[in-house]
């Protein structure tokens, strides 16, 4: 999130005489700040407070790290964390598929308009809808297995959502199915800002598709790829609840239980809000670490770009 050199210059050009109290910017950010304070600020403070508050007998409570200890020693915590880590695999998959597809679309492969329209459609469909439809398609006796039968690929038949071994990967597949379009459109957009002269020069040099791809398209996409990568990692940590909730409820045998599901269980099913609060803080800390790593990588990528 650090501003680049060019950003700093352009905004400084706009600076209204520094030192002079100008209320304008504060008024501009005021509505957003108010909403964010109400929706994020106060609840966040409450959660942090609650995480240190350990309920004792007769409605009293003490302060301490007990909640954190309880959460961290809950075997389900580690299980859930591992499941989120498994879902992280979706991120490279998304990137590796989206980038070449975007390249093809950018190069106006035949029918690109249709392909581009289709690509984004899964993204606009509600997760419950996606989840319910796939729940049917992936049933032990559902259409996917029927198709595999028909293709004589019986060895591949599985109880996709009902088998602990395949359930989390089936969830991953559905997530990728839906999120791919966002990446594709994002990359196509970025590619459209590529200067034609570069491509023409490459063609004159008789560069083939792969060479153009690696030497021109990828460098141009570098920061966008990094942005998409970060966003997707954040998604896999904090925004997959709906998928799991609708398709598996965390099962079978807790094999798709993710951190958000554990949060839900603590807060809503077991009535343990303080544990939920501690878990929330833990998830936030993990995310912040991820972001810090991302920022470091971004700085290095930008240095490469320049």
């Amino acid at each position: 999130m650090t501003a680049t050199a060019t950003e700093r210059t352009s905004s400084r050009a706009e600076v209204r005489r520094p030192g002079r109290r100008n209320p304008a910017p504060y008024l501009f950010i005021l509505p957003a700040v108010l909403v964010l304070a109400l929706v994020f600020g106060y609840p966040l403070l409450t959660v942090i407070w609650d995480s240190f508050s350990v309920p004792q007998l007769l409605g009293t409570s003490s302060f301490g790290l007990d909640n954190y200890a309880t959460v961290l020693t809950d075997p389900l915590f580690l299980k859930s964390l591992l499941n989120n880590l498994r879902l992280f695999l979706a991120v490279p998959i998304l990137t590796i598929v989206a980038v070449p597809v975007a390249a093809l679309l950018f190069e106006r492969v035949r029918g690109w308009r249709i392909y581009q329209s289709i690509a984004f459609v899964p993204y606009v469909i509600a997760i419950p809808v996606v989840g319910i439809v796939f729940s049917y398609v992936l049933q032990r006796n559902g259409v996917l297995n029927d198709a595999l039968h028909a293709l004589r690929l019986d060895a591949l038949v599985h109880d996709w959502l009902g088998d602990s071994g395949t359930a989390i990967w089936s969830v991953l597949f559905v997530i990728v199915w839906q999120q791919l379009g966002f990446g594709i459109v994002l990359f196509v957009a970025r590619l459209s800002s590529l200067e034609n002269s570069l491509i023409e020069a490459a063609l004159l040099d008789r560069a083939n598709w792969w060479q153009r791809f690696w030497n021109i398209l990828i460098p141009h996409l570098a920061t966008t790829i990094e942005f998409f990568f970060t966003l997707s990692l954040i998604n896999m940590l904090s925004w997959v609840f709906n998928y799991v909730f609708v398709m598996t409820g965390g099962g079978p045998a807790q094999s798709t239980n993710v951190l958000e599901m554990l949060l839900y269980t603590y807060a809503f099913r077991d009535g343990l809000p303080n544990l939920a609060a501690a878990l929330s803080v833990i998830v936030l800390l993990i995310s912040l670490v991820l972001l810090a790593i991302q920022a470091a990588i971004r700085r290095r990528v930008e240095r490469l770009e320049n």
Partner: protein
Amino acid sequence: MKAVGTQAAKQIPMVILALIILLPLYFLVVNSLKTNAEFAASPLAFPTTVTFGAYKKALQGQGIGRLFLNSAVISVFSVFFATVFGALAAFALAKMDFRGRSWGLRLLLPLMVIPPIALLVPQFKVLSAAGLVNNPSSVILIYIGIMLPFTIYLLRNFFLSFPEEILESARLDGNGSLGTFWRVVLPLSGPSLLTASIVNFVFAWNELLISLVFLQSDNSRTLVVGLTIFQSRLSLNVPVLMAGLTIATIPVLLVYLFGQRFLVRGLLSGSGK
């Protein structure tokens, strides 16, 4: 010959992708047009006779009209305010210097990593104390909050590259900050604003957990929640369930199809530099 070969080679991955994307959707729509018996017999085939009976059943008695209205009101209001507040804040973060600016910038991404479920309980405490359970304004408020970081992030990137000359001439014309923003910047930001609006609308329309918790009464419930809750009743009859899901999807699909021209342009100007 070679050109044709490579053209064909390029088509193959695209076709495979298109098939993977379309098949579940095909399953959804095709089965909404069948009878339950027909679905059980052949879940993948075309219906021998297209019937809308499933749609009729899905629509009756669920108060779908009310559900639709609630979803529409909430989506439109939250998107509108998120875009307006977000644009204002994004502009300030892009083009104005003020104390606390860098802090504001640094907060954006961290805000996006908070799982919505983590804050649900304290949010519920506060809003129910304020008597706002079953009141759409509670959900609208929370949606705006959730949408703001991404909106600000996206629009700020766009505003950063907004030409200085235009801003200068606007100021020379005697416009203050607000005037410049309102009369000059906004009209030229169409694609970005639309992109932000589309992404936000998709989020608001499809959102499940928050509206489930805050809008519990029949009158205030949203469409996606209503359908998920009625799933158990509907799903003994799969075509009816599929019909219901299709009905819930159509509005968002329309919004997307209408706005997709601007989507690419908007994302172009709004994403990474």
